[in-house]
């Protein structure tokens, strides 16, 4: 059981690029963007990410759902930042003052988050998980980390399903969550059992793996070769990142 990879199949240019090139491009893109601060620069970052998403030709409803999910968390920032950051008030309700600086910060974080997540969906969402694992290994990420990443992603859904089954079992016995010790105890038992079952599942999967000759290295069927287009694509995105950094430097003096 595992998470589906809804964007991994396709025939766009981004789907055809070597995962190693895409991984490098994604890292090169994200790190500076995480610290850039100029609103126009961040806006340009979002535009570039949107272009990447368009180039990836992903299923729009699915993509919007994925972005919406990310922006739910961003929404919490909009709930708190506008009135918790000190600065020039633009509106006041009793003791609460919404400041220009707070709104600006929330907006910048929203743009930054969407620019990075959009690029990662376009670049890494268009690769299979096994290909990304292979790319990480090619970039000399320690094997154990690669395996942990691989299995974390693959079994999130399994753990979620396990939780679903147990939640259904407690609901079927007339459990209704309330603010009571019984409720807390029930949820504590549920979480505890989830951990135990996850551990058991992990042990069984490991047994199944070693029965098929697993020796600590993950071999896959994916065969990739770095081509000129991969190098060009990485160079173009790196160039765009550099442009954003230079723009930021120029605007901030």
């Amino acid at each position, binding site marked *: *059981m595992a998470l589906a990879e809804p964007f991994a199949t396709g025939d766009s240019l981004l789907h055809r690029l070597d995962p190693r090139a895409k991984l490098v491009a994604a890292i090169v893109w994200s790190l500076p963007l995480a610290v850039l601060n100029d609103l126009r620069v961040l806006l340009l970052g979002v535009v570039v990410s949107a272009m990447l998403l368009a180039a990836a030709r992903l299923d729009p409803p699915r993509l919007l759902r994925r972005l919406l999910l990310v922006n739910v968390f961003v929404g919490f920032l909009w709930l708190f930042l506008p009135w918790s950051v000190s600065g020039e008030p633009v509106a006041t309700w009793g003791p609460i003052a919404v400041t220009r600086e707070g709104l600006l910060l929330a907006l910048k974080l929203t743009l930054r988050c969407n620019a990075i997540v959009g690029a990662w969906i376009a670049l890494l969402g268009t690769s299979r998980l096994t290909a990304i694992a292979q790319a990480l290994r090619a970039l000399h990420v320690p094997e154990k980390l690669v395996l942990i990443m691989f299995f974390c992603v693959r079994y999130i859904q399994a753990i979620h399903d396990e939780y679903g089954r147990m939640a259904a079992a407690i609901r079927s016995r007339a459990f209704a969550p309330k603010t009571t010790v019984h409720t807390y105890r029930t949820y504590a038992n549920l979480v505890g059992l989830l951990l135990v079952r996850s551990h058991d599942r992990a042990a069984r999967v490991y047994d199944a793996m070693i029965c098929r000759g697993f020796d600590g290295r993950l071999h896959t069927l994916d065969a990739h070769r770095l081509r000129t287009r991969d190098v060009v694509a990485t160079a173009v995105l790196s160039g765009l990142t550099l442009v954003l950094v230079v723009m930021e430097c120029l605007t901030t003096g």
Partner: protein
Amino acid sequence: MSDNGLIRLQDVHFTYLGRRALFTGIDLHLNAGDLLGIVGANGSGKTTLLHILVGLLRPQRGTINAFGRTIQSPGDYHQLRQKIGFLFQDSEDQLFCPTVAEDVAFGPLNLGKSRAEALAIVEQTLERLGLSTLAGRISYELSGGEKRLVALATALAMQPEVLLLDEPTSGLDPRSKRELVEHLARIGGTQLIASHDMEFVRSSCRRVILLDAGRIVAEGPTDEILGVEDLMLRHGLEVPHSLVAEGAIALDHHHGAGPSHGHGHAATHERRGHT
């Protein structure tokens, strides 16, 4: 070991941590070409025995000889597992790669096959089981029957000399079960099947051993063991319906109620005391 002996367990003792001993000196012989069933009620030790055979559990005492050598070190077990295909009780545990093809290729790639060789094995194995159309499918989206067959394909792709199957019919509907029986018959070779599905064991195994509380209590040709009603009931099992329908059961072999249709030798295979 006999000339065609593949695996031999001798005087194996095994105890799960903090529990009472499960096996206290069990012996098991598996010869080339055997279709051997291990039957027994829940908790009788069937799965544990299979896990000991492939080194997923290590016995506290006793010896394991397999393919002409004594298995002792982790390296021995690693080599042993390359010759044994294991079908786990829960196919979900066995299918962890994104697609069916990748799952089937996992074993061959670990054995050092090239991608091209692994792909050829995948194609061949899936075709053998009539699963070619599933190659690109996401493993977790398959039906229970399909998952079981794909799990079998992952074991077969190792090109094993022995196939160990742990409760292969659990959760399967009658049609999937029939398909599995047909495939196993076609695959042939040496198979060790642990199951409490008596009909399945009857249709797939030539010989059975009956396990109860970690002891082999009876051993012999399938119908001769499964047809002894008293023996089966005493050890938490039932005579397969097909055998009842054929009238080939012995109601109580201890009291001379001999089975019909020539199944009168089960008593000679029943073991007394600890094995």
